[in-house]
């Protein structure tokens, strides 16, 4: 058993479990940097997990399906942005509304599309894997670097961060804050769509209702713990990947499966508490000078 934890297969298992959370964590991060808490990740992920299998069934190509899914994810981000920014809906309530719509909408859509209830039974094309590593995992790791460069080395990234830091100050130097927040939320939707796509087209090879099972929420926590930076978020998402992969291995032992299922959520909760406490202590120390 312990030998297993140090094998290459186990590293691959960790990467596999990390991938969907990592995409969603990056999505949460870019929204948070623009000053918006995107709790709709859970719903966007679920929607996109379904879109992924439907598009790959229709087009027969994983790449086309991925691109179309990303477009849909971006559109949901756009809708969310319209409600939050133009109609001034509370961001949490708007997200809850999208999550509810996703829970019901995916079941309805799946039924209308194929007559399947609860999980997809039609043929799909999943993203290819090389030596056990899915191409989406590689993309997720690449996106960490891309998002880091985007946020910290491009003018648009600087604008996003300045809007999140202080909206009024950003506007006073001529940045159109609403437009920037729109871009951030659409980008957040696209990133999250990749995570949703991977869930049903790589992690699993079919869609099951509510298959995201809290990953969008975990990503919110992960991003917060990583100070909403791509690299920090990556480190924390990896931690959850490890927790989940260890949990998957422990299912082969006699430990009750219900307790194992708690591991990712308990890790998140404890991690969040410790992290927040450390941040608060550091702030207090700085305040004392």
């Amino acid at each position, binding site marked *: 058993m312990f030998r297993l934890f140090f094998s290459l297969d186990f590293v691959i298992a960790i990467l596999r479990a990390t991938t969907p959370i990592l995409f969603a964590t990056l999505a949460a991060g870019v929204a948070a940097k623009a000053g918006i*808490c995107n*709790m709709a990740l859970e719903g966007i992920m679920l929607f996109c997990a379904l879109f992924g299998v439907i598009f790959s069934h229709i087009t027969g190509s994983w790449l086309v399906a991925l691109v179309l899914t990303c477009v849909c994810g971006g559109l949901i981000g756009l809708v969310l942005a319209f*409600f939050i920014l*133009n*109609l*001034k*809906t*509370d961001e*949490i*309530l*708007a997200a*809850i*509304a*999208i*999550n*509810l*719509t996703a*829970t*019901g*909408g995916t*079941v*309805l*859509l799946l*039924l*209308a599309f194929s007559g399947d*209830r609860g999980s997809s039974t039609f043929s799909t094309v999943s993203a290819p894997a090389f030596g056990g590593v899915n191409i989406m995992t590689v993309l997720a790791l690449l996106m960490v670097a891309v998002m880091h460069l985007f946020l910290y080395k491009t003018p648009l990234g600087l604008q996003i961060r300045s809007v999140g830091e202080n909206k009024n100050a950003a506007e006073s130097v001529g940045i159109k804050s609403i437009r920037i927040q729109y871009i951030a939320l659409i980008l957040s939707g696209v990133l999250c769509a990749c995570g949703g796509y991977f869930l049903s087209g790589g992690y699993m090879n079919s869609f099951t209702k509510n298959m995201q099972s*809290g990953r969008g*929420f*975990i990503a*919110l*926590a992960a991003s*917060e713990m990583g100070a909403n930076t791509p690299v920090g978020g990556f480190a924390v998402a990896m931690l959850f990947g490890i927790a989940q992969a260890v949990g998957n291995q422990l299912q082969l032992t006699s430990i*009750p499966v*219900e*307790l194992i*299922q*708690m591991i990712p*959520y*308990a890790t*998140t*909760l404890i991690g*969040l*508490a*410790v*992290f*927040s*406490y450390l*941040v*608060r202590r550091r702030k207090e120390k700085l305040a004392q000078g």
Partner: protein
Amino acid sequence: MNAEKRFEIFRLFFSILIALLVSFALIFMVSKQPVDAIVALVTGPFKSGRNLANVVEAMIPLIFTGTGVCIMFAANQINLASEGAFHLGGLVAAAFALKLALPAGIAPAVCLILAAAAGAFFTALPAILKIKTGASEMVASLMINYLSLWFCTFILMHFILDPAAGAASYTLPKTAKLITLFSGTRIHFGLIIALATAVLGHVFLYQSKMGYELRIAGSNKQFAEYSGIDIVKVILISQLVGGAVAGLGGGVEILSPIYNRFTWTSLLGYGWDAIVICTLAKKDPLKTPIAALFLAYLRTGASIMARTTDVTLEVVQITQGVIILLAVAEQFLSKTKHRIIAREAKAALQKEGVA
């Protein structure tokens, strides 16, 4: 009633109308028998006495979680743990009903009190975490909901499982069950507890000193601090009370005639429904029964629709989603609002001019 309030009510009904129209459009898109489906959804609950009774049964748990969320949100704490508190309340009530052999009359009361205590403890956890470490209560509450689910499933599978019944507990003893109010239906004593809870919740929130402090702390933290309100205490109390109500709701639901055994192995979504109810009731517990009645009617209609046609129950979740989106969109219909208020003001001016 002033123009602004009248407008709020108008906007609420308009939001509900649009949400229903969206759902009807969806039904037309997915169904081969759309007209039958819509008729079943809208008029189904009125078709028989049993269906109407189903509406009232479905309303009871919604009143509890709705009231709980109103109290928690009034302190401006985005605590979403009412979902887990409801689940835990159900488990605690069922487990103690099975393990403590108490006489009829006392048994339900003891089980419900324990369920409420469990719910209070549960929703206080994110609040305590926030006070002690500064961690976001929203993220923490999302996580502990899953912990509640798996903890309850663990207890079910290893301590109260009836091996002869699949994933279900032993049959709950008759002595612990809530009595039925009307014979021939499953409308139970929980309805009275629910309505009393809504009234007491209103009194607590809008007519007590604590409730006043709580709402001030929720709407303007700086002002509350300045006027000497102990914010930490107020937040903690609001989360304890809200969670107790949600836990009580779970207990009432599992001890109702609807269930014979504890069978919950996935989250039931009452916590999320509660947010719809809280939105519709504008954070006033007294209005939660009306909002719950509306949602329960929609639910019952949807389940009749799902039984008799090819449309699934889940349409209702979309309706709920659209209602929330529009009902809380501040700028939605803002031009109409402006017109109504301007007209009112003009009328008032003219009146004064005449006098």
